[in-house]
């Protein structure tokens, strides 16, 4: 799919680590699949050439869906995928369900007090627990896609009189 935005010298990819946002870096290459102009950070080497983060995420999602359909899914393991350590893909692997969240209907009422874990005396260091195995949820196979995330666009006026190093 070719990009429709005119090439203004800037990267057109919006993938981030924690949230989607416009990229303010100069473009240096084009995505082989969607022809979007992208910067170095948003370009990923594949056997087919350089693709953008969005296209690569879609590819991997399709691969996971295929392997699930073939019932060859392996339990989630840490970092043993080609791009597993790249921050752009981290949340898809290790934080199932990240993104737009549906909050229970009574969320608007007065929230209950937050159960804070008793804190040790950090200065003395006398509380020196060993880590305890905690039974966490197993990996949620429901995939999170880029399209599910609510884009957190940077507000242009957000930094007026807040950025002391601005010019």
């Amino acid at each position, binding site marked *: 799919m070719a990009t429709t935005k005119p090439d203004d010298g800037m990267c057109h990819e919006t993938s*981030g*680590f*924690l*949230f989607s*946002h416009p990229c*303010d*870096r100069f473009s240096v290459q084009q995505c082989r699949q969607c022809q979007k102009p992208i910067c170095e*950070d948003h370009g990923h080497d594949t056997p087919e050439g350089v693709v953008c983060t969005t296209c690569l995420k879609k590819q991997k999602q399709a691969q996971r869906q295929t392997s699930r359909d073939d019932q060859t899914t392996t339990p989630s393991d*840490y*970092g043993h995928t080609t791009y597993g*350590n790249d*921050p*752009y893909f*981290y*949340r898809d692997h*290790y*934080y*199932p369900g*990240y993104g*737009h*969240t*549906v*909050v229970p*209907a009574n*969320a*608007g009422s007065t*929230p*209950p*007090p*937050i*159960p*804070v*874990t008793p*804190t*040790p005396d*950090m*200065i*003395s*260091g*006398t509380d*020196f*627990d*060993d*880590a*305890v*195995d*905690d*039974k*966490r*949820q197993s990996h949620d196979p429901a995939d999170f896609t880029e399209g599910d*995330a*609510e884009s*957190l*666009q*940077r*507000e242009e006026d*957000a*930094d007026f009189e*807040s950025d002391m*190093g601005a010019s």
Partner: protein
Amino acid sequence: MSFDLSQFKRDLVYADQASVAEIRSSINDIREFDRETESFLKFLKTVMSVAGLCTVFSLCAFFPLAVLPGSVLVVCAVIYFQKKKLDLPNRRYEFTTEVVNALNRDMPKDGQIKFKMDLTPSNGTHKKTVSEKVRGWDVTYFEDPWLRLEGRFADGTAYDISMIDRFQSRTKWARSSSGKSKRKSKTKSATVASVKIFPKQKKYTNLGLVMGQTNQFLKLPTWVKIKKVNAEPDVLAVTTITSENWSVRRTDPNTKFDGPEIVYTSLLSLYQVLNASKSENL
């Protein structure tokens, strides 16, 4: 401010406010310096081994012959222990590189990070906190805040990440069944990670409605334990602790405990709270 390697070699602390590119470049200098130190130490070890063997053989054969290899051994040992102080803990600067790279994904192009990275040993005397006697053991605790990162993401949210190593050293005299006294010692360590974000109030106006559910959004590795969660309208924070011997997967692919994962998952968890505050149900 530019990175001064000669200054760094004196105090092994790198503190600055700089762009990600500059930080990466400076850590690269540190990495190179550490590699040189490690190679040199390895070379010294080899020389000391050879000198040691020669000394032993010389002593057996003809005592005066042992003077030369013995001297070499002593000199090398002195240099070795001096240089050993400059052997840096690799996982700390590799961890910093990984985390800074991840933060850079959501920072503005001209964003800067204020940071301090301390590569001095955890059991330095200035890091000692408490000494006490516990059930016959002389126990000394050390607290080593070796990393602090402060900056701002592109959406205006500020972050404050710190890593603290806690180190415990225990010694005592014990008598064996044969009646001999010997000194026993043990060490223990843990890493405390504190991740805080300070969201912009204008952007996340409904944060107060969901912060009560902060705990349900926390998804952290199984090998860390949550110590504290703080959820207020202007700050979300999670503090975790782990005793696992973690390293950095990029340099140690076989590790089961990837240190940067603690920070990644903490940030994702806290940002999930922010995502929830934009939910349509509110």
